[in-house]
């Protein structure tokens, strides 16, 4: 288990969704957990500072019509780091992971339009000399409610 206290875990589990939509949301939470507004804000700031929580914010539904895609490459293992660096250097790439499979490099491209998306994938294929498969979202089935940690 990572370094969160049991009260922090409880707090995180309670507030992955339904953050109050009212003028003083932290005061509302404070009244529910019997703390002060300042204490609740300090807890959230601390979780963000420690990188346990990336942000307090909105999770937006994926849009099938967007200029974004999940792409994969089968990279010879000896070239993986070099190719990963080329992929990560693209500004439109926001996640880039190694996975255990013949297709061992997976990345998400989020571009401002279809043309930029295409250009990014083409540039990666050209620079690395390796084919890129493009797997755009067709349908999302899951409702993201956060999940207990």
């Amino acid at each position: 288990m990572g370094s969160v206290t049991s009260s922090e875990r409880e707090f995180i589990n309670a507030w992955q969704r339904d953050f109050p939509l009212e003028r003083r949301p932290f005061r509302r939470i404070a009244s529910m957990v019997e703390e002060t507004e300042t204490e609740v804000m300090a807890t959230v700031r601390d979780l963000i500072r420690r990188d346990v929580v990336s942000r307090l914010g909105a999770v937006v539904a994926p849009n099938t019509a967007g200029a974004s895609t999940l792409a994969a490459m089968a990279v010879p293992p000896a070239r993986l780091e070099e190719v990963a660096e080329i992929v990560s250097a693209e500004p439109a790439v926001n996640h880039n992971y190694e996975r255990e499979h013949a297709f061992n490099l997976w990345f998400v491209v989020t571009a401002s339009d279809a043309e930029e998306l295409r250009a990014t994938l083409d540039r990666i294929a050209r620079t690395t000399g390796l084919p890129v498969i493009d797997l755009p979202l067709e349908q999302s089935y899951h409702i993201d409610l956060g999940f207990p940690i």
Partner: protein
Amino acid sequence: MDRALLAAIEDGLPVVSSPYADIARQIGTSEDDVIGRLKRLLGEGVVKRLGLVVRHRAVGFDANAMVVWDIGDADVDRVAEKLAAQPFVTLCYRRPRRLPEWPYNLFCMIHGRDRRTVRKQIAELNASADLEGVPTAVLFSKRCFKQRGARFSTANMEPAA
């Protein structure tokens, strides 16, 4: 205006006593308009949730598997609804096959504390939707080379893989 609002909060709400008033000032509208819009976007399903976004690795969820199957086009929606209902499935998507090298069209993401647990959950998944014998692969993640929050301001986002 909705796009400007999503762009303004893409890095998170400010942790101050009146966060919606801060956002309203940034995009030139009223605090109540921001609150009203966010309520509507949640109601419409454009915003799936508003709250803490956890870094799973930071809280001990070290095993991350992408599980893929090749499901017949006529059955894929029905199977996907079943898989997506399992509490440990964090994302579930249909994507195109790229034959011959990539024959899979249904993707589920599972985050777990360790690989043993995740493998057990995958077995449960296969049993729950009667998927014995269906072509499948499990791709555990290893190194993360780059991770950044999705940018709502530039485009519609692709979910974190």
